[in-house]
């Protein structure tokens, strides 16, 4: 981020501080500058991306128009965007549960890949009627993703291996495992592989997620599953004992231990839940059809990473993850339309990461201001 963004934003915050006297009325007035800071941060991030596009010979306005066309305006586009947002949301919700318990799972990319692989393995082998096959393969996807994260939990609680590093390293192991699986017919490779790359068997029709037709947009039923999951997680985290224990463990592990919250049970469970959600995301992504009709080695294509970014953007609030997942999915589907502008499609990845960085700044500045004014009052 540019330093001018930081300075502008902190100047706004200073102005806000003069008005608010630290009273309750002050906090309401203070809300305006915080919103202002967000607006400034996002504007600077998008501005930098626009400069980047212009500096490399593209046209920022055409890129913007193409992104809008690809994600919303062209026929059937927003249906595809919602279908793409589905795995992002599921991954993000799982990550939020882990983060609430103080578990930094950052291996979603690998968990998602293995989840999709498990789904493909089960769905191409069992001969079951539609909904049952989907249910069974989703359970398989959840189980594999959850167990993969469970490895990290096991290592954390038995051998004190930090989960930040173990989940990261497991991504690369997972990716090599699926590459290996795609060289063996008894694992993932198609019986008659015609393509030059090793691909999986096409999914049977029963394993394809049915979609709703809304005004010519095909919206996968997976989106409904994702929304229900988000709602359930939001309620469980905010309103139930288990949610309370989870948050207590994340906020203050020492207090949590005194209250009898088991770090292994609750923390490990939260980590495994986030892995299971990533695995389910992989299953939904594969069955949603937006990534083709079969398993390939490149199927995850950063869905796991982007889901993680969505969770970071939502700052541990499940409800906020819904619009964020939609925005990220829009950038992703929109980038498919960039070829005509002559700008590389990966500008969408840049925009995503810049947005995350930009949205980190205002709350950080606010916390800084609060600390400074707090220590001033104490002295």
């Amino acid at each position: 981020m540019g330093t001018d963004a930081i300075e502008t934003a902190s100047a706004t915050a200073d102005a806000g501080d003069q008005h608010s006297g630290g009273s309750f009325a002050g906090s309401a007035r203070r809300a305006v500058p915080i919103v202002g800071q967000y607006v400034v941060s996002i504007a600077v991030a998008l501005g930098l991306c626009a400069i980047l596009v212009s500096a490399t010979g593209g046209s920022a306005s055409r890129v913007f128009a193409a992104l809008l066309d690809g994600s919303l305006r062209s026929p059937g586009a927003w249906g595809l965007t919602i279908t793409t947002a589905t795995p992002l949301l599921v991954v993000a919700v799982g990550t939020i549960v882990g983060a609430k318990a103080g578990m930094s799972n950052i291996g979603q990319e690998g968990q998602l890949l293995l989840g999709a692989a498990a789904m493909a393995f089960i769905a191409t082998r069992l001969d079951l009627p539609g909904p049952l096959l989907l249910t069974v393969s989703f359970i398989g996807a959840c189980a594999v993703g959850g167990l993969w994260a469970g490895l990290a939990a096991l290592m954390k609680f038995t051998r004190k291996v930090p989960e930040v590093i173990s989940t990261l390293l497991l991504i690369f192991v997972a990716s090599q495992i699926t590459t290996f699986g795609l060289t063996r017919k008894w694992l993932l490779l198609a019986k008659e592989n015609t393509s030059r790359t090793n691909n999986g068997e096409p999914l049977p029709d029963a394993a394809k997620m049915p979609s709703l037709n809304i005004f010519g947009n095909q919206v996968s039923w997976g989106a409904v599953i994702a929304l229900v999951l988000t709602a359930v997680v939001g309620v469980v985290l905010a309103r139930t004992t288990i949610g309370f224990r989870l948050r207590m463990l994340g906020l203050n592990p020492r207090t949590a231990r005194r209250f009898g919250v088991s770090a292994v049970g609750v923390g490990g469970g939260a980590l495994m839940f986030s892995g299971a959600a990533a695995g389910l995301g992989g299953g939904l992504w594969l069955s949603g059809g937006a990534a083709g009709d079969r398993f390939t080695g490149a199927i995850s294509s950063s869905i796991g990473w982007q889901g993680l970014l969505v969770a970071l953007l939502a700052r541990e609030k499940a409800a906020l993850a819904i619009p964020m997942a939609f925005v990220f999915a829009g950038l992703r589907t929109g980038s498919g339309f960039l070829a005509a502008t002559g700008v590389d499609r990966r500008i969408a990845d840049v925009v995503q990461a810049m947005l995350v960085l930009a949205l980190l700044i205002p709350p950080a500045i606010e916390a800084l201001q609060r600390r400074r004014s707090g220590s001033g009052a104490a002295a």
Partner: protein
Amino acid sequence: MIAFGESLWDVVSSSTMYSSTVRFAALIVFAAIGEWVAEKSGTMNISVEGMILTGAFTAALGSYWFENPWAAVFVGLLGGFLVAAIHANMSHRLGANQFVVGLTLNVLAVGLTAFLDAQVDPTVVRVEEFRIPILADIPLIGDALFDRTWVLYLIYPLVPLAWFLVYRTRWGLEVRSVGENPQAADVSGIDVNKRRRQAVYFCGACAGLAGAYLTVGQSGSFAADGVSGRGYLALAAVIFGGWTLKGTIAGALVFGVFQALGSAYQALGYEANPSLLGSLPYVMAIATLLLFAYRSRQPESLGRPFVRGLT
């Protein structure tokens, strides 16, 4: 099984093995030295991957613009430094979560370098090998260590430099103290977050060199997937080494050996599944973490942000 043992012996006793071990390990060593300093100050710097990637790309840009390898390496170093500057100021000035910032920077580096590579497409001039007389004639390891590009030789002064900085200067003492007990360091008048920022800058410069070595010294081109997780092996190497410099370098060499094993095994014509061999360094990294993470003594406040007051 005997055939496998024989093939393994063939691989281990071949000079290609030593040569490619150094080839793979060099990247990790550069990055791990920087990461070690950053972790000594209490920063778990997972953006090291993004720093290497950015350094690799900016080195390619430098080579393209200036057509001079020295300039390319310097620009590579600046690239790593730039990522470090963002990370350090966001984490240790604004107080944003260091894992979140690091992770986002990694994602940004992947997207940005791939995008710019597609838009600019820089051509790189690879640096030729420079054989150091006498030293290069040492059997087995001579060729591997002393018949290389000069970019790799930068490791040899960098190791003692890092050691001297951390263990023999006032700055190093302060860096170690802010990693162990930031509250005490703060009370004794050390600017904790400033020292942490500086340690991250150092890490960025080292990781930038790692990237420059990859582009200018090794492959002679920039590949968007050229780093692909090897920066994380540098993180594992520091844990392997129990937060000592020589252990860290040993760890980097071990991971280099396992990467080399994969490629040398195939180069000698033995049948083995490439993807299983490819996962070897990561599996080994996890295995070493299982062995060493438990008993080693990490800096007391590694990964914890410093906030003045009662925490």
